[in-house]
Every structure is written in C-alpha cells, then in structure tokens.
C-alpha cells in the first residue's frame, strides 16, 4: 500500500535512512510488483516526454474553440528581451507553463501531472531549472518521484480531480508536487519538501474549477502559471527554513473538506465562476449553442 499520510512518508524516510525519492520508488516497486529499474525508467520516460512536449509547442496552433493559443510564444519572446519584471528563470517558467497549457488545449501530446489541465506546472518549473543549472536527467527523475509521492498522498486523502474538488485539487496539487520536487533538487531535507508542499496547497486552497464552455482552456492555461510561480516561492520559503503553520496532512484534509463544500457549479461543470460571466457564457453559447 502506498503512503496515506505525509507523516507516514517522513517516518519511512527516517526508518530506512534513504533519500526521500528512493523511499517513494521502493514503495512503488512493492505496490506494483515491478523491478526498480522499470520504475525508474518509466519515470524517466515521463521526463523525456515533458521535454519533447515542450519542443513540440507550436506558436501558430489554436485550440479548436479558438479561445487559446500563441501566448506562450509571446511570453517567451518577452522573456528573451530581459526587460521583464521577473528575472530570467521566472519569466522562463511563465512562458513554459503557458506553452504546455496551450499544447494541451491544442491536442498535442503532453504528460498529465497530475492531470491534463495542470500538465504545465511541473515542466514549467523543471525545464528552465534543468537548463539553468545543467541538471542531469537522473536528478530530475528523482525529483519527479518526490512530486509523485506527495501527489499520491493528496489523491488518497483528498482528490486530484477538478470535477471532485475544484481547481485547488488540480492546479493546487500540481503546485504542491512541484514545490516538493524543487526542494529536492536544491538538496533540501524531506521535511522541507513536506513544508513546501503544504504551503503551496494552503496558498491555492479554495480555488474553483470554472472553465469557460467547459473546455480546458480558460482559465486553465494561465492557472498553470500561478501553480508554477507559487511552487517556486513556497520551495524558496521552505529552503529558507520557514515552516508550515498547519501540518501537511491537515492541510490536505482541509482541501478535501473545502472541495466537498464546493457547489457543483464550481466543479468542472462550466456553469459557475468565470464560465458564468457574460463573456464566458457568450463564448459557450457560440461554441456549443448551450447555456
């Protein structure tokens, strides 16, 4: 059985005296009855797929509804000018998140992490990080184990589906996973990864799922940006030694209860929030002839 709490995960790390990512890998090996190499190779293949998805971005592509496309390229060009408010890494992250979110909306091949709607968050922080720090594939793959390990706990205690728990469950979870992974890449302790995960979730608690016309386009693409940027700030806070006032497991449980309290119109039905604005509703009407 995979870990059901962050507490249990940290205890296992303590007990086994192994790095966090390896404890998570070992658990996968046990859970699925596979060999270590296969588990590692499978994760590494996801990293390779993230990179090729990034390379496959097309600036000219538009989603079938016509609502999104091209913004990732605009941001990339802007980032290259060096005039951005954010520094080189952060503006690269913003561009990457947009590119991945747009590729998804345009039916390109992506890696759901944890979902297709939130597929931009992890690659957005990892690809520019690897580029800037010349980080090897092995290290990034290890960090992905950390991300997935926390994601698994979130999925088991709460949810990673917007239809079930709102966008906090998708972009929030992706952000928490990315924050933990970044801490790992900077050689932070397992507790720091846990704090980063916890803070990232706290910051996005209550985020509703309100896609215009029910499509994974608006606000999804840009929410990948906030997920990525939030992950970076939470990872940096954790690495600075700042703790999470509420323990991770309690934060995850509160995300679940917030999700349970959310009305259906804010859980991927495309009927509340931004989807219900006059502009959102008009777009839906044009696309589906409904609402």
């Amino acid at each position, binding site marked *: 059985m*995979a870990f059901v709490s962050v507490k249990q995960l940290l205890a296992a790390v303590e007990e086994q005296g192994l790095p966090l990512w390896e404890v998570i890998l070992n658990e996968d090996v046990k859970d699925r009855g596979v060999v270590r190499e296969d588990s590692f190779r499978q994760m590494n293949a*996801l990293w390779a797929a993230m990179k090729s998805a990034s390379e496959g971005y097309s600036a000219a592509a538009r989603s079938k509804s016509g609502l999104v496309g091209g913004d990732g390229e605009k941001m990339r060009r802007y980032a290259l000018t060096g005039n951005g408010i954010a520094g080189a890494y952060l503006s690269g992250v913003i561009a990457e998140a947009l590119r991945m979110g747009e590729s*998804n909306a345009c039916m390109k091949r992506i890696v759901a992490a944890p979902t297709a709607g939130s597929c931009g968050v992890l690659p957005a922080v990892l690809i520019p990080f690897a580029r800037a720090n010349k980080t090897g594939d092995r290290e990034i793959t290890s960090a*992905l184990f950390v991300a997935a390990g926390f994601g698994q706990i979130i999925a088991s205690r709460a949810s990673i589906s917007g*239809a*079930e728990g709102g966008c906090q469950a998708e972009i929030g979870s992706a952000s928490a996973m990315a924050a933990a992974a970044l801490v790992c890449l900077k050689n932070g302790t397992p507790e720091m990864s846990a704090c980063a995960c916890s803070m990232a979730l706290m910051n996005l608690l209550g985020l509703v799922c309100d896609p215009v016309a*029910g499509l994974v386009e608006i606000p999804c693409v840009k929410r990948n940006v906030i997920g990525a940027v939030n992950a970076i700030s939470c990872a940096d806070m954790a690495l600075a030694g700042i703790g999470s006032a509420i323990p991770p497991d309690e934060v995850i449980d509160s995300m679940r209860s917030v999700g349970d309290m959310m009305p259906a119109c804010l859980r991927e039905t*495309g009927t509340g929030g931004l989807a219900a604005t006059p502009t959102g509703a008009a777009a839906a009407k044009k696309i*589906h002839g409904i609402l």
Partner: protein
Amino acid sequence: MNLFDIMGPIMVGPSSSHTAGAVRIGLVTRKLLGEPVAEAEMLLHGSFAATGEGHGTDRALVAGLLGMKPDDERIPSSFAIAEEEGMKFHSGTVTLRNVHPNTAMLRVKGKSGKDLEVVASSLGGGRIRICRIDGIETNFSGDCPTLVVHNLDRPGHVAQVTTLLYQYSVNIAAMQLYRNVRGGYAVMVLECDQPIPAEPLASLEKEDGIIKVTYLNLDE
C-alpha cells in the same frame, strides 16, 4: 491510485477524462470486437455530450476504434484516417440512466459482420469502466489482461474456463459473472495478472455452449 496514475499518463490533450479516457473506450471496444471496425455509431451521454466536441471526444473515440492509444499524435486527425481506412461512423447523443456523466454507448460492426454494443464510462485521469456489453451489465477497467466469455447460462462453464487458465499458470485477480435471465445468456469477466496465450482461447471458443470469447490486453 498507483504512482503512475498520479504522474502520467503521456497523452494527447486536452482532457484526461474527455480525450484520453475516450480513446481507451474506443480501443477497448475495438479489442472486444476482435477485428477491424467497419461501421460505428457513437452515442454520447451527459458531459460527454455537452462538451465532447470541444474536447475532441468524438475524434478520440474514433481514434480508439481505429486501434490508437491515448498518446497517439494522430488522434486529432482520426476522422481523416477513418475515411482512408474505410471505417464509417456517425455520432449523436443519448440519455442513459444511472451512469457516470462521462459515458458513451458504442455500437460497432466488424469487417466480417460481427457486431457489438458497449457502454463505458470515463472516470477521470484516463481510467475507464466498461459498464455494459451487449446489454448485459459488467464492471471492469481493462487495466489488466481481461477475458470476457459469453456463454449459455449452464453449469460447468466457469470450471471449464478457470481450469484452462490454471493450466497456463494464469492467476485470476478478479472474476465477475453476469446474465440476462436464469438459464439464458451469460457473461463471465476474468481480470488476470498475466497475459493469456492465444491457443487456449481458440480452443475455448469451440466448446459447446460457449458463444463468444474475447480477450483484452491494452498493452499488446
């Protein structure tokens, strides 16, 4: 959910439930039919019907029926590929009772004239559940090698099938039995830990009282 249900799958966007899950539903149907699809009717229910077009659900179903997997980059152009391969299809909407909001009913006819009706739901994250085959309730995911046997509802068929699997050292993970009426038409669904070799399946199909044997292994 296992670790790679969280990280992954690699898939063509935009939605794991409306696109990746729909491809799998098409693929499972194609595999259950056991031969290339000549004609298909795709009926969408609930949220599949409401936002299916924008999510490419119809193109995803067609891609699956053509044998594509969720990460196949040809999914967006599946309509054109179906035309090239001579697969006729049309889609519409349907209202089904007591099913998940993301559900499709597929009626397919194979090249040899065999036909099949499948009702399946997309549960999120690309995972699916096959809820009905030819009008008989079922409940399986297609994640592991699955054997589906249609037989007359008479004693002995279950023993026949399980003995055969035992002979080939195939372990059964879960087994379900369904029938329309007592003594009528029955369906046995066996989800296994190992893939099943081809020969025993062919011999099983020849047994008296066994109507149809279908084997599903999405990894093949």
